[in-house]
């Protein structure tokens, strides 16, 4: 897959994520009202809208540069903890895509993203944060590609299932990081907003990846003999 095709895939993924976040704005706000400061929907909408504008306006076909621009926009514009968490992790991981987007670099991106997220948020599994959705997603994605030899789009499908279970896991546990931790035991029984937005973005990327792959299977088969489009979307998983 050439650089321009990868860049178009990244742009499409960013547009789709922006639309999905806008659609789910009040759902995210409701979740955050229950155990936080009720700004997750608004903050994410603002961040992704800025990211979409920046990516559209950027005259570059370098996927690493486009992905980095998404992270920079989220860092500057979100305003809440999701800014440094999503934005900072995307910026940190974007360097893994310097040689283009492949199954291998997408796994490296996912791992680098997860590492930065945990370092910046100082959160671990079981703290009732986005880490609870992301660890199962990243581990499943890596295992599906490196051990099971699945195509990236199939691996991404399994990662989405894993993230969904991670989100469900946040419901019955007590928050020990983030704003919800101020509620102590009253946080139990509520779904974590950050884990939820992580899942929404993964679902969106899977849907974009599946559609692009369906439409371009012949091109991929001719050009490289592997499902290159899905690689691109899988990388964007960690948005």
């Amino acid at each position, binding site marked *: 897959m050439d650089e321009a095709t990868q860049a178009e895939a990244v742009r499409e993924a960013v547009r789709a994520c922006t639309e999905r976040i806008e659609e789910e704005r009040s759902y995210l706000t409701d979740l955050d009202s229950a155990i936080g400061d009720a*700004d997750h929907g608004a*903050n994410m909408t603002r961040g992704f809208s800025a990211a979409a504008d920046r990516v559209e306006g950027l005259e570059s076909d370098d996927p690493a540069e486009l992905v980095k621009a998404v992270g920079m926009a989220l860092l*500057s514009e979100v*305003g809440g*903890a999701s*800014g*440094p968490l999503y934005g900072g992790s995307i910026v940190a991981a974007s360097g893994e895509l310097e040689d283009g987007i492949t199954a291998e670099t997408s796994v490296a991106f996912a791992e680098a993203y997860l590492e930065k997220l945990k370092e*910046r*948020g100082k959160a671990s599994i079981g703290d009732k944060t986005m880490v609870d959705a992301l660890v199962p997603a990243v581990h499943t994605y890596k295992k599906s590609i490196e051990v099971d030899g699945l195509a990236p789009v199939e691996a991404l499908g399994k990662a989405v299932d894993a993230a969904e279970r991670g989100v469900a896991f946040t419901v019955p546990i007590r928050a020990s990081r983030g*704003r919800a931790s101020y509620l102590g035991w009253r946080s139990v029984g509520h779904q974590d907003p950050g884990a939820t937005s992580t899942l929404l973005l993964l679902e969106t990327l899977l849907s974009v990846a599946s559609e692009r792959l369906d439409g371009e299977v012949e091109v991929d088969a001719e050009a490289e003999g592997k499902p290159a489009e899905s690689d691109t979307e899988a990388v964007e998983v960690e948005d």
Partner: protein
Amino acid sequence: MVGIVIVSHSEKAAEGIMEVATEMGGDARIEAVGGTEDGRIGTSPEPISRAIADAADGNGVVVLVDLGSAVMNAEIAIEEAELEEEVVLADAPVMEGALNAVVAAGAPNATVESVRMAAEDAQRVKKFG
């Protein structure tokens, strides 16, 4: 003089804390930064970077933060600061820490480390008893 930066989710809170702390040292190099650039509650890294640069005069800067995104965005601003001098985050309650920091920065032999330690001493402040 060691500079001090106060970061809060609220611009009013940051400026209010600066007002109270400045009473303890009128010549302190102190900057307040709060809220997002479009006036919402929250923080973002760029205004924190600018406040650090404004507070810096070659003797280092100690940054005090409230919570959540303020901590993380201050970390990012510090990591990206292109200054020769030392910039550190103090793990302290922001109001009491700012008071301690202003007092410590006024000492003749103050260093970034002495100001940070004074700010962090505020973790032990008791309001009564």
